């Protein structure tokens, strides 16, 4: 437990809180890569997931592809992409590797969110005369939002944890303190930075958990507590 105490002491030292390589700066770098990767991943994965969920076209191979992408080792992918893009393109390379990591849970969330809606609901909407776009935006999107946000939570959690690796190609972030601390045997620094990453991940997750609660349509939430028709 000494290491943990040393880490807390390290965290409380003032030089960790201001200046060039300080923690606030590292947190900002970390959040920058995380945020950028999540946004790009969402722009790719959500439309694709909606398309497959709504039309059920291409579901077999797209779902399979997204599953297979989960198996890609991120560290290897970052280095591979840096070699492809060159060192001057390392920022793009690192973000792209994180995007690849973030797509599968988001895609699965968007796809299965729509997929789990009872077909009768969608048929009813169609019978009312709604166009396909109206069905997507007014029925499927709101009803699938909680599941999509679940996918977003997973995606954010994986990306924020893996963004630690961008330090290996000189892009900073909280991983920097970890990979610098190990060879220097400064375990207070290594563990201290790890604690900050964990805290960051938990904060983001709590925030998204709250958002998921708020985004759940009232009818869906009530329906979860008690079957309304049984009253």
């Amino acid at each position, binding site marked *: 437990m000494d290491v943990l105490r040393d880490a807390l002491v390290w965290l409380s030292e003032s030089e960790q809180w201001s200046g060039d390589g300080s923690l606030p700066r590292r947190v900002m770098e970390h959040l920058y890569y995380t945020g950028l990767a999540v946004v790009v991943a969402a722009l790719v994965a959500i439309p694709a997931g909606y398309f497959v969920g709504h039309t059920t076209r291409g579901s077999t191979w797209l779902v399979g592809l997204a599953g297979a992408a989960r198996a890609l080792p991120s560290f290897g992918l970052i280095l591979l992409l840096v070699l492809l893009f*060159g*060192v*001057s393109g390392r920022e793009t390379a690192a973000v792209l590797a994180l995007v690849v990591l973030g797509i599968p849970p988001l895609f699965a969330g968007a796809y299965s969110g729509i997929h789990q809606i009872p077909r009768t609901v969608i048929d009813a909407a169609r019978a009312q005369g709604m166009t396909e776009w109206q069905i997507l935006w007014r029925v499927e999107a709101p009803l699938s939002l909680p599941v999509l946000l679940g996918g977003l939570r997973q995606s954010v959690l994986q990306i924020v944890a893996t963004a630690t690796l961008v330090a*290996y*190609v*000189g892009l900073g972030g909280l991983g920097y303190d970890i990979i610098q601390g190990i060879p220097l045997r400064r375990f207070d620094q290594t563990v201290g930075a790890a604690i900050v990453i964990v805290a960051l991940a938990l904060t983001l997750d709590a925030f998204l958990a709250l958002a998921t609660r708020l985004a759940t349509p009232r009818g869906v939430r009530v329906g979860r507590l008690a079957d309304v028709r049984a009253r």
Partner: protein
Amino acid sequence: MTSTTIRTSLTAALASAALVLSGCAAGAEDEAPEMEAAPMMTEVIVVGSQAYYSNEIIAEIYAQALESAGYEVERKFQIGQRDAYLPELESGAVDLFPEYTGNLLQFYAPDTMATQADEVYEELQGALPEGLTALAMSPATDQDSYNVTAEFAAENNLVSIADLAGIDGLVLGGAPELEERPYGPTGLLETYGVVVAFDATGDITVDALLEGVISLANVYSGDPRIAEFGLVTLTDPEGLFLASNVVPIASSDVAAELAAIIDPISLALTPEALVALNLQSIKDQLSAADIAAAWLSENGF
């Protein structure tokens, strides 16, 4: 399985009081009488290596040389970093390990002032914990060095690190820990008056140098890419870097007998030979065992 072998060999070699210290022999102490031992040809020598391809090749050379001298060898390669394997060496679980004088000295004596090869070796012998002995050091080095591209060197007439002083906009690339090392940016400024920015390029340091993202790269002197890409290694007249020669570290109880076999190998392993060995691994993708066997036979061992 090894414990039986070790116990057998111990019975055969009880007199060697040194062997009793090997740590595998707890309890054998009472039985150690003062009598001449038979040669310990059946003893198992455990050779370890770091998780670094070049280090593994050297360890494999030691292992094969010991085998052809009649020893039974157990290989414990790729153990990892010093924190992982030094306790193994100190406890006697590993008998022989290829190390690097400077880096090892820095581990045991972080405040050392020695930088030249002989000083470092001498100080290392004093700094090693009880039970470990440094065998003869090799002329081969695998140490930190600062490198620039041939064009950059020609443009600025660079030969030594001191020639960098006064050049604006220098960016030093290397592993993240270089930022905090005594020979990093601070050392460059204090020893040579060279001002650099730092970029933690890590594994992509050489690529970053070739692309011009950084101007100065910390590359190990044993790295074959220095020759492959025609990099210019700047000389270090002020001894900024700790000299780091290849040095076999042995358990003291077997050091004397191993030295007879390993010392000639260390002397034959030149800096150029080490780079050539590394190149065969990186470029030709040969296994450590093949590279070691070829080198041993070429050099008449």
